[in-house]
């Protein structure tokens, strides 16, 4: 039987789907029987998802202009 501490140790592999079949089945039965581990699993999964779904800020326009100017200069020098 897996303890909650074991479960936590395998959390990455469980979340990323990289745990082997046997351990994955044990992790699944633990998480379905243990409300606390289920919440930790669920909220960690949501944490990763919310970060993956986050669009970055638009670049401040002056930073974008300076980047474009630096590129133009490079293009000019390279051709």
């Amino acid at each position, binding site marked *: 039987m897996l303890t909650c501490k074991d479960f936590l140790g395998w959390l990455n592999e469980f979340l990323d789907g990289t745990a082997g079949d046997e351990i994955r089945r044990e992790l699944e039965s633990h998480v379905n029987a243990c409300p606390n581990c289920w*919440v930790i699993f669920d*909220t960690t999964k949501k944490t990763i998802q919310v970060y993956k779904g986050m669009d970055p800020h638009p*670049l401040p326009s002056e930073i974008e202009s300076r980047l474009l100017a630096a*590129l133009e200069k490079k293009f000019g020098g390279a051709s």
Partner: protein
Amino acid sequence: MQPILNASVNGEAALVSRARTGDNAAFSELVKRYQRKIYRLASHITQNQEDAEDVLQDTFLKAFTHLRDFEGNSRFYTWLVRIAVNESLMKLRKRRSDKLVPLDEPVDTGEEQIVREIAVWEGTPEQRYSQEELRQILDGAIDELAPIYRAVFLLRDVEDLSTEETAQTLSLSVPAVKSRLLRARLQLREKLTRLFKRKGDDLFAYL
């Protein structure tokens, strides 16, 4: 006109091969596509606006100069991320005299994983906050992480690099990447749960 839209990696490979033949418009398109993400990454690692802007420029200028060396073994974007991380780390090293913790400092393994907040979230954060508010919350939480956790989380979960690519980019072992990623994820989970939890659920957490 060559078609730019491509279902696979949104035509990244096509743009890269055009850029390699000297098509500057194709290279500019790649810059436009990734500049925001590269700037965000550099800002998080350097924690300094000026440095982040330097890294942004240097990353694309270097990529342009070395485009012929890009072998296509990884995605072009992964290659860009690696340049940006190297540039960012160089900036950090220059400022090393101050209190910044270097990324290669060994992890203190004496400390247990932090799990204190055990509560389900109220709806989804996207429903509860505007995009701008949510961005600030998420960026702020990343910036509160120790640098050694922050970089690993950014590369693995924000920039989608593999564990091996992350290890290579940060000169870490694969087990070190894995253990830091777990801590980073749990620490962020902890921070976000404090904000997003359903009120009243704490009562049950300690039963």
